[in-house]
Structures are given as C-alpha cells and as structure tokens.
C-alpha cells in the first residue's frame, strides 16, 4: 500500500438537526484516482467542503500527506496542496484564461509583471498535463469543456497535488467527459492524486482505482474498483436492489398527437439553429431525440413548447394547428394538451425562491380549480401539492419549503409531478435526469413509461445516449440543426447512432 494523500477519521458534521456526515472515515492513496459515490444529499459535497475548509467538522481529524492538519479555510487547503474544481465554475467570464488563473495570486503593484511571470508557468503546465486552452482566450468564448480545464489549471497553478472534482461531468457532453478522463489519467501518471465525486456509476467504473460509497451521511463501503461492479455499487448507494435496465413492454402506437412540419428556427444572434425539421409523435410511443448537446435540440424544444415564438413551419397538437402568426405562448400549448418538463429545472422549471406549493401550480395558476373570484384557493393548491409530493415521493415532504432547498432529484420530481399529474395528452421532456440521483432516475423513467403505456405521446430529448436507448421506441438523431436519421429502438446500436450524432449519415458510409 502506497502512502496516504489524505486520511479523514471520524468526521461528524451536523447542520441544525440534520446530520450531514456521521463518523466518516476515508483513506485516499497517493497517486490514485479515488471515486466517492453516493446519491444527492448523501453527504459527499459536505465532506469535501470540510476537506477544502468551507465548513469545519464538528469532530474528527484530517491529515494530509501524513501530517495532521487543521483546515480553517480555503487558503489552508491550498497551502496543503489541495485544489478543488467546483461543479459550477468559479471563473470571471470576461477575463482571459491567464487573468483567471492569476486572479488572487498577483504579486506587487503592477498587474502586467505578475501576468508576464505567470504566462510562462501557465504555458508549461498546459504542455505538461496536455491541458491546452490558449492562455489569452476569453472565458466566455470557450466551450464548457475547456472552461473546466481552466479550473484544473487554476488548481495546478496554485501547486495542488490533490485535486478534488465535484460532479465534473454534469455539464459535459460525452466526448468532453471522455477527454476529461484522459486528462485525469495523465494527472495520475504524473503522480497527482485525484478525488472524483460523482453519482454516475459508469464514470466510477471507467476511471477510478478505488471507490468509497456514501449513503445518508455515512460511509458504507470502501472498495477496489476492479473488484466491484455497477450493480453492487448501485445497491450500496441506494440501500436496495436497483434496476439499471428499464423494463418495458413493446409500444402500441396509435394516431399522431404531435406533428412537426418544416420547423425552422434562427436565434437572436442570427445563427440558424433548427433547419427544416419534420417528424411526428404518436400516442402510446416515446420518441427520443439524441444528439450531442448544442445541435439544436434545445431550440427545437423551445419552439415546440412555446418558449420561443414559432418562426417558420407549423405544429399540430391533436386537432389544433399552430402557425407562426398565432403567436402561441407556453400557456396556449398547455391548453392544447402539452405538458413540458424543461431541460433546466432551476432556471426554467421552478422559481427556486418560491415554496414547493407555489411551484406546484407554476404554469397552471390560472386554472379555475385554483382560483376564486379574487384570491387563489389555498386549499386546492395545498392538496394538489400534497398529492403530487406523496405520489412522487418528494423528500422532505414539506409543502412550505423553498424549492432551492430540495436536492436536485427532488426538485426534478416536483417538476415531473406538476406536469404529469394533470394527465396531459402530450409530454415533452428535456434532459429528464440531468443531475438526478440513481433512485430518482429509476423512478422518473418508470413514470415516463407509465405515461406511454397509458396511451400518451412522449417526446424525449436527452444528451445521455443510454437514456435515449433505454426509453425510446423510435430515435431521431439531430446534428447541426437537422434530423440526420431515424432509428427503430429495437434495432438500434450505439455505434450507428454515434455516427449519426457525428453527422455521418447511413447513405454516406
């Protein structure tokens, strides 16, 4: 056994009455990639925040490189050689890469001097770890994957030997994620230690050497990755057996519920995002739209759901025809029988400062069922929310809690409950399980299939190919704003779809 980079023993941390970490111990070997896996709210982030000095543990000891330490704040952590890459990047958008990296470590009065000195060091780091970004690029011109590299560079520049990555792939496309993993392997070869926090089993299996599993604030297992498998890890995480494969009967499609005809969309900056897209979704089937993120799926969703005004082409929902001159908005679409679970629940699907019950009627607040002559009917809203939260097992079951205080998975359940409980004819759902833990993913998938089996039409947009493959009955692949091809789910394989996602159509090969 090699030297220990980090050893935590008996860490306890309480927030009020909530026990976030309970007698947690962790040993991370030097020069390895160590995964920490657990559902949202299992205490992974709290543990790492204690290690990085954001919180103080109530009790327990921390030692770094075999030296016992008191980590009071992030400075102590950095001095101890710990670097952290946050889930949401801490970068100044309008600064260059170099400026961002130097930020906070400038010396002397002249910024120019510190920048010049740092430029060399940064270029050396870029080369050494194959993290080329271009030190003079401005952050907001970089894709997310490269922004993340800047975060890693920042940590390395500050002399980090131990790198903590918090859910690093949450914002990345599969390709970008693969690239990140190559970078991480590189770092390991150079002798760095990497701690990877995630709830994605595949990532753990693909990249880590050791894995620790957390559940409800406790460490439930430390394993060698090579000696375990996804099923075992999932069971440890959730505390019961989990179906990773979705069980579903063959589809019985009926009449088209949604027909999209020659839809075209150009965004505000004049980029032609969706090009002449036509397809339909029939009752009793799930149509999946696959594609690397940023190929027009979001814009297609926005146009179909009334978030963006329809520009060209037309939609048919049941017997209603929607043309651009009707200027139909999201409220109209709901009236025509569409329910919409948006891609971004925090920005779009919820008003995070509102309570759960206020969120449970967002978009349906004008429904006569919730309204008296002047004031809203509190009891009706309350019972809707109560019913939804029970049926969808939202935890904690507190109607007055602000939406921001629910975990990601439970926030998503709040949205799904609101949209599905009204029994819509057509469900449009974008990235249904982004940032959602395994237990909730399984649950949400079952709900989507139940909708289909009840004879509803479902349009599913996801960048998770696994999700598309396991849920859809038909798969459409989008590339550069166009539908590259349609694949029957029964005969689909990852390779064919991967080619379509890269813009290579079958005819061409």
């Amino acid at each position: 056994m090699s030297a220990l980079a980090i050893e935590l023993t008996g860490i306890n941390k309480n927030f009020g009455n909530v026990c976030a970490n309970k007698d947690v111990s962790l040993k991370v070997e030097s020069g390895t990639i160590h995964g920490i896996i657990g559902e949202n709210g299992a205490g992974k982030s709290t543990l790492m925040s204690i290690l990085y000095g954001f919180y103080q543990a109530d009790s327990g000891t921390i030692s770094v490189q075999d030296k016992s330490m008191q980590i009071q704040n992030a400075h102590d952590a950095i001095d101890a050689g710990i670097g952290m890459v946050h889930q949401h990047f801490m970068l100044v958008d309008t600064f260059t890469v170099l400026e961002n990296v130097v930020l906070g470590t400038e010396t002397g009065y002249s910024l120019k001097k510190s920048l010049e000195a740092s430029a060399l060091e940064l270029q050396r780091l870029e080369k050494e770890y194959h993290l080329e970004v271009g030190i003079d690029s401005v952050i907001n011109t970089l894709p997310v994957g490269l922004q993340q590299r800047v975060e890693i560079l920042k940590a390395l520049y500050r002399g980090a030997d131990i790198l903590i990555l918090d859910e690093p792939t949450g914002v990345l496309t599969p390709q970008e994620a693969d690239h990140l993993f190559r970078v991480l392997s590189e770092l390991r070869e150079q002798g760095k230690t990497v701690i990877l926090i995630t709830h994605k089993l595949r990532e753990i299996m693909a990249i880590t050497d050791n894995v620790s599993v957390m559940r409800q604030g406790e460490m439930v297992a430390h394993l060698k990755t090579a000696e375990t498998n996804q099923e075992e890890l999932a069971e440890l995480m959730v505390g019961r057996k989990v179906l990773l494969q979705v069980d579903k009967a063959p589809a019985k499609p009926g009449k088209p519920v949604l027909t999209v005809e020659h839809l075209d969309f150009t965004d505000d900056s004049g980029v032609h995002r969706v090009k002449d897209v036509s397809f339909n979704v029939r009752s009793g089937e799930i149509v999946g739209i696959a594609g690397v993120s940023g190929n027009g799926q979001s814009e297609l969703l926005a146009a179909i759901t009334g978030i963006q005004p329809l520009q060209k082409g037309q939609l048919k929902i049941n017997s209603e025809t929607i043309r651009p001159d009707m200027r139909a908005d999201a409220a109209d679409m709901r009236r025509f029988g569409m329910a919409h679970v948006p891609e971004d629940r925090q920005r779009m699907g919820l008003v995070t400062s509102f309570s759960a019950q206020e969120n449970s009627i967002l978009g349906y607040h004008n429904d006569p069922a919730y309204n008296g002559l002047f004031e809203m009917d509190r009891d009706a809203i309350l019972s809707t929310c109560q019913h939804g939260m029970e049926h969808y097992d939202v935890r904690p079951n507190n109607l007055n809690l602000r939406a921001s205080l629910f975990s990601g998975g439970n926030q998503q359940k709040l949205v799904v409950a609101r949209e599905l409980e009204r029994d819509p004819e057509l469900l449009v759902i974008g990235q249904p399980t982004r940032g959602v833990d395994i237990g909730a993913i399984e649950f949400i998938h079952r709900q989507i299939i139940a909708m289909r089996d009840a004879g509803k039409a479902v349009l599913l947009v996801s960048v998770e190919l696994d999700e598309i493959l396991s849920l859809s009955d038909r798969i459409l692949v989008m590339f550069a704003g166009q539908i590259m091809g349609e694949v029957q789910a029964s005969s689909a394989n990852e390779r064919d779809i991967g080619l379509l996602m890269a813009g290579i159509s079958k005819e061409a090969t």
Partner: protein
Amino acid sequence: MNETQANTLVVTLVTIINLLLAFLVSGIVIWVLGEDPWFALKTMLYGAFGYDEGLGYTLYYTTNFIFTGLAFAVGFHCGLFNIGAEGQAYIGGLGVGLVCLWLESWPLWLVFPLAILASIVLGGLWGAIPGYLKAKRGSHEVVTTIMFNFIASVVMVNLLSHVLKPPQEMSPESREFSEGVWVPQMHEIFEWFGIEITQTPLNGTFFFALICLFLVWRFIWYTRWGYELRTVGTNETASVYAGISVSKNIIIAMVIGGGLAGFVGINEIMGSSHRLMLNFQAGIGFTGIAVSLIGRNHPLGILLAALLFGILYQGGAELSFEVQAIDRHMVVLIQGLVILFAGALENLFRPQIEQFVKRLAT
C-alpha cells in the same frame, strides 16, 4: 422553531439593531455638537407622540409614506426599482385636484371614489409610460422614472402658473376647493363620536392607507395576478416557461405603483391643503423607497417603517424647534443615518445575528 420563523426573527433583529445603531451614531453627533442626546431623544419622542397634535402630524406624514412605500414595493416584487413615486404622486395629485375643482358641487361620497380613480388613472399613466418603455424597449426604469419626475415637475409648474391659477392671484396655486369635497379631518371624525382632539392635517385618508396596505398584501401573496407579478420579479425564464407575459406584468406593476403613489394627492390635496399647489409631494416619493426597503417590501414592514419616518419628520421638527444647536438639517442627517444603516448597511451584523438565532434554535 421552523425555517420561516427563524427567518422572521433574523429579519426583525437585523432591522432593530440597525435602527439602534443609526440612533446611536445620531446621538454621538448630537453629543459632539454639545447637546444632550438623551434630552434630544426625549424631545423627539415627545414631539411625535407626547400630545395629540404631535401624534396627528406623525400619522399624517405616515399616511403619505405608506402610499409611496407601497408604490415602490409593488414594483420591487416585479423586479423593478421604481424611483418615480415622486412624479407619480405629483401627477396623481393633479388628477385629484382636477376632480375636486370640476365636481365641487357634487357630494363627497361621489367625489371621493372619482378622485381615487383619477389619481389611479393619472398616477398610473405616469408609471405606465416608463413601464411600457421597459417592457417593450428595454429602457431601464431607474433612468426613465427619474426623468419622469422632472417632466412631472415641469408639467405642474406650467399648469399651476398658467392654467389653474386664478388670474388675480400671485402664487402658483389653484383656488381653494369648496368645503363639500374636503376629506373629513380626524378631529371632525372624532367629533362624530363625541371625542375632542386638536385639529391637525390628519384626515380620513389615513384609514384609506390602512385599507391599501391590506389590499396590497392580499394582492401580492394571495391572487394569481400577484403570483404572476412575483414570478416575473424572481425568474423571467420561468415566467416565459409558465406562459406568463413578462412585459404585461411589468406594465401592470408600474400602473399599480403609480396609482398608489398618486394617493398621496388624496391625503395632501383633498385632505389637507384643499388646493393644488407646487411641490406638495416634495421628498415623499423618495422617502417611500427607504420606507419600503426598511420594511422589507412587506405591507406590515412598510406600515412600521412609514410610522418610523413619520416620527422622524414630526419629532425632528419638534427637535429643531426646541434645541438650538439642532436645525432642520440635523433631522435630515438622522434620516440619512437610518437609511444608511437600515438600508445600505443592512447586512452589517447579519451573519452574527443568524448564528445567534441558529444557536437559539438548537
């Protein structure tokens, strides 16, 4: 103690401590000036509460601040920073004045609602234009509303000196309204019940202000229109998702705010001066911003903050009258310190207070 209660406790403690701090610094200034701060405080409180005339003035000022505080708060809940209550009150007051001049032979029970309507229409219009510009053109409301304050001022100077001024008069004022359309003053109302109090400008509009507080509270938190307003104010993306029109709600919030500000005219024009005159709204609109912010944009908080500023206005006047070293500007200083500590430096001790409450809870 649950989360909401803890929050309320924190907010209350933060506000109280900030106010005490403002008074402490005011006291130090008074002490430096060679006066006795304790005596100054007593004089001020006595001036504001000690006798019925003082109390009348205090509540009369409070009435004005309730209206402009609410005007700011409604916009704030829709994500707007409406600093145009000054102009909206001015133009709303014009509406009140015109109704009173035209319909002075009508009975009060008819003129009063019409005056309210007129101040809503004109004050609301004065809010609606910046609202429209914001909603459709993206012009920032802070810029446009402050411009509209100046426009209102010029419009009123012209109307008063050229159109509404009786020819033989020297001062730019309208003629006095006939007594039939005056809002009953508080001493008259008390007389109906056989109670005698000193005559002050305090009038029946005070009760109307309390009704407005209640209505705004129910509107913002209990109606679907308030729900839409708050959604737009907190998250525009979610509003679009929910099919809520952002531009419609911005305009609605500005119209309601303008109308509420216009009610200052009911209190000042119809209830006190009984004529249209220059600058009857001076400073009330701006003070409303501080009232609303200190009152956390909640009607109950606005009531308390409006009362506080009523005390500062009336008690401060008494203070500058009684104590020689303290003149009118000293009172402005105290008001400024209140705004500084309770508004700008609001979160000075918040972390400590939050910790304290957290420890209390466990």
